[in-house]
């Protein structure tokens, strides 16, 4: 649970403390790149991603979510390296079993993701700015302002949705609205006191009538 307390020491050195994680992301990411190509071919042939690739990519997305959250001061504890579910205050819910995906959308995935990536890029710059302000706030007060934390959490949510869509983990297009995703468990804005317990989710709320239940973390 995130009580918004931030250790000044780890905040001061936050970027450097992420170095081992950034190296690990680089190495793991290289494998994800290879897996993406194989998975894309599999998805084109059988109409859904391969199960082992799905689990592999899902773990990578969960892991990168925790590292980004740590780097941007959205969470306080140092994340683990395995991307295990239920191990971090800010968590990404991703389907671990592959779902059927439209072959045409799969074929054009690289092009389809572009508009969402533009939004993600803009959100990323907002997050940089907010993190800069939050860094000073956390250094002075020892706490993360709730608004900054929630804004960052929503930005991460959208960015990771983009990657989940790109990596074929989900067939649902990313949705930037923090409100539409509420049914799926994205409660960081609406219910700030329980924000840390409510994970950001990767699944876009394209079909709100069939939402996933929010997990308790």
């Amino acid at each position: 649970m995130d009580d918004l307390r931030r250790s000044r020491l780890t905040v001061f050195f936050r970027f450097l403390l992420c170095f081992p994680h950034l190296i690990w992301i680089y190495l793991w990411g290289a494998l994800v790149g290879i897996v993406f190509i194989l998975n894309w071919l599999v998805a084109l042939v059988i109409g859904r991603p391969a199960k082992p690739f799905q689990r592999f990519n899902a773990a990578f997305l969960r892991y990168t979510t925790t590292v980004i959250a740590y780097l941007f001061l959205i969470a306080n504890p140092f994340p683990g390296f395995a991307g295990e579910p239920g191990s971090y205050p800010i968590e990404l819910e991703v389907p671990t079993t592959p779902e059927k995906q439209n072959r045409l959308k799969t074929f054009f995935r690289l092009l389809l993701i572009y508009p969402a990536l533009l939004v993600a890029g803009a959100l990323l710059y907002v997050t940089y700015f907010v993190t800069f302000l939050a860094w000073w706030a956390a250094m002075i007060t020892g706490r993360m302002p709730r608004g900054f934390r929630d804004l960052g959490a929503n930005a991460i949510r959208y960015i990771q949705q983009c990657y989940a869509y790109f990596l074929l983990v989900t067939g649902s297009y990313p949705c930037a609205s923090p409100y539409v995703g509420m049914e799926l468990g994205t409660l960081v804005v609406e219910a700030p006191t329980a924000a840390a317990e409510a994970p950001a989710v990767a699944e876009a709320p394209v079909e709100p009538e069939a939402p996933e239940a929010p997990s308790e973390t």
Partner: protein
Amino acid sequence: MSKSSRRLLGLLIFGALAAVWFYIAYRLWQTSVPDDLKQPSVDMSTLVSSSELNRAKHFSLVLDLFGLAGIFLPLLVLGLYAKWGHRFMRESAAGPIGTGMLLAMLGIAILWIAMLPSGLGALWWLRRYGIEKTGYADLVIGTWSVLGFEFLGICLTILIVMGFARLLGNNWWLAGAPVFVGIAILVTFVQPYGFGHPLVGHATLVQAEKRLAQKEGVKAVPLREIDVSATTTAPNAVAMGLGPSRRIGLFDTILDGRFSEPELESVVAHELAHHKHNDLWKGIGWYALFAFPIAFVIAQLTKRRGGMMVPLAVPLFLFAYVAIPTVLLPIDNAFSRRLEAEADWTALQATNDPQAAKALFVNFVQTTNQDPNPPFWDPILFGTHPTDQQRIAMVEAWQARNGG
């Protein structure tokens, strides 16, 4: 097997290992400098003006105080961290190894903060004497950036140690020490590729190096120029690499015209001598010799915190990891001084130019402000090379033997 037999067997094995250890140490300690070499006493005031000598004494004494802070402050800070550092475990959601990495990084980070004032003080002193040109902000930013690489280094160390500890328990040192020696070999091998650029505009020196290499009976190695003049005026040269990566690195501060061609040839002959005597391999051998007992001692010390299987032991590990090499510093420095003295001796044999060697060491005093005859404790703690006075004394001893 009875308990007493097991104890006897253990003692025999330990005795055999100790004998092998001492034999290797003895072999590494030997140099080609004649054992019966009598070094004359040198009156530095006949070579360097009294004002230069006073300036060097004053400069070195204060610099030594900052150096002492650099040795003892880490022991104090990491000693306290060994006691209290485990409290930072609550800042981690990672597993044991990840938490261990965090604790190690935070220990190094706290040390960086604690060392910053003395680092800035030393920079102030070096700038005052025109040795350093780095700005204060550059130092802070520069060391902060380096800290990131130190974090990676300590994380790799923790990964190796805790990884083996989780596999082998408190016997991790048996597997860990060879891995660290392997890393030392790898780093020494690849290091030259990251430093310097080919030496241009010094054709005479390149020719001289080939001639000196032939005289020393060693293969000529590429000369590289290392650009440091933007940050320092201190002249230096280094022998780098192993096998095909062997190089001689000459700082551009030694090539800036303050040193004559014969003096530069003495420098190159000295660095070639390091390659001739395989000093980089000897250094790795020396490191390996101590890596096993140090790792063993650390494994025994950290047992009280549950061993290196758990992150609780990491702050104590960090303290021991710094404290034990600090205790061994005088022995390491003595070993280094022997290798350097041997390189000086071999360089004299190759150049057959004691006047150039003497002028070089006098020039070192004038350009670095290092005290040629420091207090007795200075070489023990800081002396990786013989003092300039000792180096000049060796030149005179060589002259006495060879009638130069």
